[in-house]
Every structure is written in structure tokens, then in C-alpha cells.
């Protein structure tokens, strides 16, 4: 009886986590550049009971019986599929038309240094600097990196921004001169290795060396001739790739499972009541 209860409670808490993940997906349906997360279950331990030592009858299965103790979340995977593009007609809104390509932004690492974070959210702005130049930043104020890994700065007085397909930003000035900057673009090879910093930022895990992994194999920077692979669009933003109907279906399934497991606890409780009621 207690076993029934423990099996059901193990699963209830994990279902709660699945519902949390679904809730996070649903709340980010309007977040540009968000990629849906998909949580899947797996079986927990099986325990062997050798309860038939005295009965030597022929049987199909190996000796004893095996009991499972419920289910737990196995892994959450990021769905890297392309989200649909939304036209905004704003000069500094950029979107990738190919999945797995990422902008690099320079984020403070909390210790006076910088770390590179990756995002597909391309709503950028220019921010004036003390020396009179402009810096290309994203909505959170983090500098956008150029192909050399440095913040992108341009002289002030720009009349027009545009970006070409391979990620080269062109700033036009009133006298007709232009300034060009290459935006850094990286291709994500192993989505499941990345650390998720927020809904839209991912970064290299801190224990990369411990894992024995090579950063280049996980996230490949596109340089030189490889930049031809970049598919960037101007005046557009990428919507999240959350499929609301799928999420709602998953939510309903999870809720029903939650009820079924809660019912198991009720049944176990009633059985305990029966034991108590023997006398």
C-alpha cells in the first residue's frame, strides 16, 4: 500500500515538473527567438522479489517478479526547428532564415569579465558611448559581437542601417559614405550540451574541459568563406517555435496523468482503511 503511494508520489512530483516546462513554453509563445523545450519520461528502478522459491512450477519469465517504482523525467531536449518570421520593418531587427545559426552577444560574467552568450533574438539597438561612437546592443543592453569577438562600434550620425544576407551590417551617413561591420554568427552543432541562461540566451557550459569537449565542435563560428551559409533577413524577427496546440495537448495529458496517479493514492488509502477495519 505504502509502495503504491510512493510510486504514485514519485510520479506526481515529476509530472509537476513536466507541467512547469509546458507552462514555460506556453508563456514564451510570444518571445522572439525562443526555442521550445520537450520533456520526456523514463522508468525508475525495478526491484526484484524472489517470492516463488518453493513453487517449482514451469514459467515463462525469469524467476521472481520485478516491480517498478514509477516514472521520472529523463531529459528535456531543445527543439531547434526554425520559428516563423514576423515582419517588423525596423532597420535593426534581424532574423535568421536557417535554424541553428546564432548571434553572439557579450554578457558580463559577474567577475569583471565577459562571456559570450548566444541568441536568436535579433531585435538590436544602438547605444551612444562616451567617446561619441555608437555601440550595437541587444534589447537587454549587451553588446553584439563582431566576427572578431569584439563589440561593434560605429561613428555617430547614421541615417540608415541595413544588413545583407551574409550578416554584414552597413551604416549609411548623410554624406553618402558607409561603414561596414561583420556580425559574428555561430552554428550550433550539439544543442543539448549548451547551458540555458534564460529563455533566449544559451552559453557554453562552465565545465567544458571537465567534459572533455571541444567548444569548436559544439558551436562553430562562421568565418571567411563559411559566411556564405548565413541566411539573415532584415526588418524581421523570428517568432518562437512553440506549437501551442501541441503544448495544450501535452498539458491535458499531463493533467490527466496527475489525476490518475492521485487516484492511485486514494485507492491505496482506502485499502489501508480496509486493513484498519479488519477489526
Amino acid at each position, binding site marked *: *500500500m505504502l*509502495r*503504491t503511494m510512493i*510510486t*504514485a508520489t*514519485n*510520479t506526481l512530483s515529476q509530472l509537476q515538473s*513536466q507541467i512547469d516546462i509546458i507552462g514555460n513554453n506556453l508563456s514564451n509563445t510570444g518571445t522572439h527567438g525562443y526555442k521550445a523545450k*520537450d520533456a*520526456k*519520461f*523514463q*522508468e*525508475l528502478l*525495478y526491484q526484484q522479489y524472489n*517470492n*516463488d522459491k*518453493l*513453487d517449482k*512450477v514451469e*514459467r*515463462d*519469465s*525469469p524467476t521472481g*517478479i*520485478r*516491480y*517498478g*517504482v*514509477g*516514472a521520472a523525467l*529523463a*531529459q528535456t*531536449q531543445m*527543439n531547434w526547428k526554425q520559428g516563423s518570421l514576423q515582419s517588423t520593418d525596423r532597420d535593426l531587427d534581424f532574423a535568421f532564415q536557417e535554424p*541553428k545559426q546564432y548571434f553572439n552577444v557579450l554578457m558580463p560574467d559577474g567577475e569583471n569579465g565577459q562571456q559570450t552568450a548566444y541568441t536568436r533574438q535579433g531585435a538590436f539597438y544602438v547605444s551612444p558611448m562616451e567617446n561619441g561612437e555608437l555601440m550595437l546592443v541587444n534589447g537587454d543592453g549587451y553588446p553584439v559581437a563582431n566576427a572578431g569577438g569584439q563589440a561593434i562600434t560605429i561613428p555617430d550620425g547614421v541615417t540608415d542601417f541595413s544588413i545583407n544576407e551574409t550578416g554584414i551590417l552597413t551604416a549609411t551617413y548623410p554624406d553618402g559614405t558607409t561603414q561596414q561591420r561583420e556580425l559574428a554568427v555561430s552554428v550550433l*552543432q*550539439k*544543442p*543539448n*550540451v549548451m547551458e540555458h541562461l534564460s529563455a533566449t540566451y544559451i552559453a557554453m557550459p562552465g565545465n567544458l574541459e571537465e567534459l*572533455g*569537449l571541444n567548444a569548436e*565542435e559544439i558551436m562553430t563560428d562562421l568565418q571567411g568563406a563559411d559566411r556564405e551559409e548565413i541566411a539573415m533577413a532584415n526588418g524581421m524577427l523570428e517568432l518562437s517555435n512553440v506549437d501551442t496546440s501541441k503544448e495544450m495537448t501535452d498539458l491535458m495529458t*499531463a493533467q*490527466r*496523468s496527475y489525476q*490518475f*496517479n492521485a*487516484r*492511485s493514492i486514494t*485507492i*491505496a488509502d*482506502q*485499502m489501508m482503511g*480496509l*486493513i484498519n*477495519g*479488519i*477489526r
Partner: protein
Amino acid sequence: MFRGFTTVASGMIAQQRRTELLTNNMANANTPGFKADQSTIRSFPDMLMSRLGPTQIPTEDPISGKYDSKVGAISTGVYMQETMALMSQGQLLQTDLNTDIALINGSLPVDEETGQTGAVFYRLQHPTEGEAYTRNANFTLDGAGYLTNPQGLFVLDSEGQPIQLQNDDFQVDSSGQILVDNVAVARLGVSFSSQPNTLVKQDNGLYRSVDGTDLPSAYNIDNVTFSMQQGYIEGSNVDTARTMTDMLTAYRAFEANQKVLQAYDRSMDKAVNEVGRVN
């Protein structure tokens, strides 16, 4: 005295075990590749009851001796003898992830001696030794690019080798060939068991043979057909309505046993407190 006293107790324990098993099935109703456990309840081996008594042989000088006549068989209870997984196909669920590759049963031969239908499994490398088998096709790529199950065990190809890929931009055709840029790089390993009941079920959806021997590859076995579907997982084959019904049946059987136990208790009450009372 009351022989049935322990018999009903064993009935209660058997129904309790059944409830525990059904709870685990219910808990895994959302686990990919989970195969519902089925239980068999078996009567304890019969005992032969004898009547013992004195007898007199009618001779001139009567001889008294022990007399022993057989009354008949009596069963002293039930227990849960076997748990066996129902190997039927689970329904396919679309996930859009390239690393989810559902295995779909085709025609599988029925073993003439045992009447069991065979089963096909993906081959995994077990961390200690030998191979483990699974139907949970919710795979992923680890940091080094190896195709693994959620637990991190290597998925093996048809030659028994781990499968290393650069990223998850690959296609799997229905015959299990993994194609990268339309070039076949490996073929997913699939093993065939003619008697799936002899496999031991373990955590994380693994099945292993009792003696540690590896199952034969399912390719090139006559009459065994199967196919793969990328972007899908095989759902659990637990029927929640049936599980709930079974659970209520087990509950009522438990209650009936409890009622009989109470009846025995009342008989004992009479024997102790009323038989031989003077007033």
C-alpha cells in the same frame, strides 16, 4: 483450526501486489517505449489433506491401529507468480526531433513451442558488459556526438559499434539507415528476441537477457520485418482506462478478502467467547 484464515490473508497480499504493479503501469502511461506489465496470480501448490484416526481390525482379539484416509486436495492461498511485459506496439507520437526514431513492428513470427510473438529492440551498449535492449527511442547526441539513450548509453549500429555523428542534421530512412547529406553512414542496430518474456526488465526502459548473452541481429532473420520513423517516438502501450478498471477490480477483490477475514474473526470470537459458556 481455521485453515482459510491465512488463505484470505495471502489473497489480500496478492491483490495488494497487483495494485502496486498497476500503479507503476499508470505512472508510466507517458513514458516512451514503456511496455505495460501484466501479472499472473497463481494458487499455492495443492496440499493433500488426510484424515487420521484409530481403527480396529475385527479379529477375535481386536487390534487397534492408526488409520489414514485421503480427504482430497486443499489450496492454501495465492501469490503473484509472474510479471510479464505486454509487447504490443505503442502508438506513435510526433516530436519533430531528429534524434527521436520510433521502431515500428512489422510482422513478427510466433514461436511454435511457446506461442509467444517475437519482439524487436534497439541495441544499446550496457556500461558493465554486453548489450541492453530498449524500445524507448527518445535518443539524444552527447557532447562528443555519439547517439545515446536519455541515460547516456551508446546506441549501437548493426555491427555493434557506437554511432558518432557531427550534429543532429541526419535522416533515418524506414530501413534504419542513417544518412548524412544523403550518404549512408551507419545502420541502427536492431535485435530480435523470439521469447521476449525471458528478458529481465530494468530501469530506464532497458531489457537484458538473464545470462548476459546478446540477442541476434534482427536483420536477415526470416519473417521479421520492422521499420523506423524519424521525428516520432513510440508512446507507452498502457491503456489507462483498462488499468483503472483493473485497479478497481483488484481493490474490490482485496475488500472481499478482507470481509472473509472478518467473518473468520467473528467465528473465532464465537469459539473463544461463546462456546462453552455457562450462562
